[in-house]
């Protein structure tokens, strides 16, 4: 995944690019491929959840998210956790600039 987190005045803007085919059961049947999509994404700063998403297969392939929040400062670390329909997890982090 790719994470960019930038502080603008007091608001942190995060751009997140995840990696998943985001294939639901209908698309899997048509294309004869396996179902595979992310079900949940969580963003945390200092152990506190700042943004999260319950997700489904109608997000585009390799889902993109942008979100904003207040309360962080430059140098803080943002941690992103994802989980897919099989329970496979991924995690990555970035420093807020």
């Amino acid at each position, binding site marked *: 995944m790719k994470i960019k987190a930038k502080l603008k005045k007091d608001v942190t803007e995060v751009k997140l690019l995840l990696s998943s085919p985001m294939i639901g059961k209908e698309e899997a049947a048509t294309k004869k491929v396996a179902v595979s999509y992310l079900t949940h994404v969580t963003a945390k700063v200092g152990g*506190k959840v700042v943004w999260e998403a319950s997700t489904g297969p*109608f*997000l*585009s392939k390799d889902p993109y998210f942008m979100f*904003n929040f*207040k309360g962080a400062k430059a140098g803080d670390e943002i941690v992103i956790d994802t*989980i897919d329909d099989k329970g496979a997890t991924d995690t990555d982090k970035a420093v807020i600039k």
Partner: protein
Amino acid sequence: MKRRKFLSLGAVAAAASVLPASLSATDFRATAPKAWEAATSKEAIEALFGSAAISEGAIEIKAPKLAENGGAVPIGIKSNLELTTIALFQDANPRSAVAVFELGEGGVVDLQTKIKMRKTANVTVVAKGKDGKLYSVVQKVEVSIGGCGG
């Protein structure tokens, strides 16, 4: 922590193959599974938010008038309201629910994502405010080339 809440959180964690992060988060796939199977936005919204009154407007959907690539239609959501839960639905795919966002304490309602749309359809955002009220907005998005194999 109340026992009932603790138990339901435990169930969520188990359903998500015990991801520690899910203990502090709401997994709407586990708490409202019906919402993700509903074919129409109306059914999905009811499954997720119940049948409480919803006020129109006060939220802005930023989407192209004509999306050239239905595989990745950019959708932006903005509002000056203090919102805690923001759900995105569309009527262009076999099922309606796309994503449910939850904002933390310092959350600013300025979100973007990209969704699949296999045809021209309405995109609906329903959100819950800190005041406990529900708000919604609908916007039609025209798609020239569909992007969902469903």
